[in-house]
């Protein structure tokens, strides 16, 4: 209220509400810009997309049976109705019915897990958050084990259906426990851990009480995470759910940036904090449930990929989320390829490989960022 308004500032004070109506040209103020131009960023993203396509194509040719690039081209050509010479039925079936869905599934699941990890790390403000933090994977395990061991609805549901039912059940319990709370970061983490522990205990109980050695072995394989059960029908489900979930998460990018500074700051920026957190919990739970139901709880992807990509692409979610999705996809496609051939003809659960590769990568990233 003191001082003369004309004397104290120039023509336009950008920080006053009156300046909103003015058109501000870029050169009127020396403004900080984020490092790269729009064209460079689009080009970089297309390159990363190309790297994913290349990885998928290459990974299809890798495995115990060598099919090669021409094999892949001929299988695709036949399906597209091009005039190529068809492959022998057995090889064609190997490529089309087994390897292609498996590699595509790896890409979809990798993208899902990486994005879920990134989102949950922001929502809970916890660097150790990963997609399994909400206990959804434990619920999925209980569902799968119940189907396999107890034979509950085995014919109709199968392992995937049981896992999905278990995941939804555990998420329902989580939401029930979180109802009427502000969905604060620490409460989400604690409740998620409690729900996870409960379902882990239930899984162990069912296994110990009822399973024989062979069943336990089969279930363990699934629990560690393996791409082997991927078929076209599960890929199609993932191919519908995953892009929708990734899009929903990406549309919350600005809110995710704001949430890092706590509830009050985020709310004062006009972000509907509780609604956004709720939406993101539902989205991450759905993505995780669909992924875990088919291929089990593959560890570490959702933890290390977000940290690695944040190191390269920066912390702004608008940029971070798409790259996390691509990096997660590429990472899981290659680790799954490795899982197929490393101890061929025996196959290692991909969850074992992701952890073996993930631990040193994680340490490297932490050291580079000066946190270790």
């Amino acid at each position, binding site marked *: 209220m*003191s001082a003369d308004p004309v004397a104290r500032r120039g023509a336009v*004070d*950008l920080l006053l509400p009156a300046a909103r109506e003015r058109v501000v040209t*870029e050169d009127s103020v020396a403004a900080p810009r984020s490092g790269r131009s729009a064209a460079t960023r689009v080009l970089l993203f297309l390159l990363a997309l190309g790297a994913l396509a290349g990885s998928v194509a290459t990974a299809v040719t890798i495995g115990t049976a060598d099919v090669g690039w021409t094999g892949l081209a001929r299988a695709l050509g036949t399906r597209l109705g091009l005039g190529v010479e068809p492959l022998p039925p057995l090889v064609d079936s190997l490529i089309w019915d087994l390897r292609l869905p498996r590699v595509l599934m790896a890409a979809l699941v990798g993208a899902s897990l990486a994005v879920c990890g990134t989102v949950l790390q922001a929502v809970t403000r916890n*660097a150790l958050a990963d997609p399994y933090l909400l206990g959804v994977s434990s619920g999925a395990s209980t569902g799968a084990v119940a189907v396999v061991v107890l034979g509950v609805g085995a014919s109709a549901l199968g392992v995937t259906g049981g896992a999905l039912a278990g995941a939804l059940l555990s998420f329902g319990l989580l939401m029930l426990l979180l109802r009427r709370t502000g969905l604060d970061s620490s409460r989400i983490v604690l409740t998620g851990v409690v729900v996870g522990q409960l379902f882990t205990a239930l899984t162990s109980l069912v296994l110990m009480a009822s399973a024989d050695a062979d069943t336990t072995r089969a279930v363990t394989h699934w629990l560690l995470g393996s791409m082997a059960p991927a078929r076209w029908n599960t890929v199609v489900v993932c191919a519908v759910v995953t892009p929708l979930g990734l899009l929903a998460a990406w549309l919350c990018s*600005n809110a995710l940036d704001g949430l890092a500074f706590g509830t*009050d700051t985020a709310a004062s*920026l*006009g972000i509907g904090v509780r609604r956004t957190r709720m939406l993101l919990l539902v989205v991450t739970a759905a993505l995780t449930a669909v992924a875990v139901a088919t291929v089990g709880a593959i560890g570490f992807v959702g933890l290390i990929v977000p940290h690695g990509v944040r190191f390269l692409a920066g912390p702004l979610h608008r940029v971070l989320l798409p790259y996390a999705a691509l990096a997660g996809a590429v990472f899981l496609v290659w680790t799954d390829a490795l899982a197929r051939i490393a101890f061929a003809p025996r196959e290692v659960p991909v969850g074992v490989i992701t952890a073996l590769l993930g631990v040193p990568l994680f340490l490297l990233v932490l050291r580079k960022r000066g946190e270790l």
Partner: protein
Amino acid sequence: MRIAAEELSWSVAGTPVVREVSADIAPGETVGLLGPNGSGKSSLLRCLAGLRAPGAGTVRYDGEDVRDWSARRIARHVAFAGQDPGADSDLRVADVVGLGRTPFRDRWRGPDATDRAVVGAALERLGLTALAGRSWKALSGGERQRAHIARALAQQPYALLLDEPTNHLDVKHQLELMRLLTRTDQTVLVALHDLSLAARYCDRLLLLHHGRLIASGTPAAVLTAERLAEVFEVDAELTTDALGHPAVTYRGPLGAPAPMSHPSP
């Protein structure tokens, strides 16, 4: 923008924190909110900023009930900067200040030229231009506090509500910030612990005690020796400093042992 509280009450876990506070802050006024620890300053600020729904009473912006305003509309009119700037974030300072542009953007859209220009001006105003590219983690407490105020300014608000914005700042930045707040046309409500700073820079003071508004008026009218004794439990008087500004001089806390130099008989 005019901000009014009508019989405002707010409680947490059954404990009343703000009790029947009525206040009216005129457009362009710089008002200081004073009171000891736990007197309800932060809670009242949050209610007035639309961050807490009051248990009873009404908050009005230019006469309109805030309950009818969306969070986004509030954010386009009122900016709030809280006390705790702590966040384990990798964001660059310019991006943190850029968060202030969130209410003006579609939820997925990146910053445009206007956003960048406003952020540049806000950084400059708080003397943070040289730190624009610095990571949030690498900032000191005072730098973080200034960045949060710059973020609030980047909202181009009609009203600024600040919760102890000077508590991490060095003397120079305290004086600069207070001068900035008095010289702007925006309505400013600022919670302060430093009574002298409040007395010197604010047009008007509000004094809270146990959640009640017990005094409102010019610094000289609000800050009397009797009130300081009653509310803050200190032995103090309102004096004039060497430059002629109102200042509070403390003799000591009330109820404490007498100084050594004056042994009791």
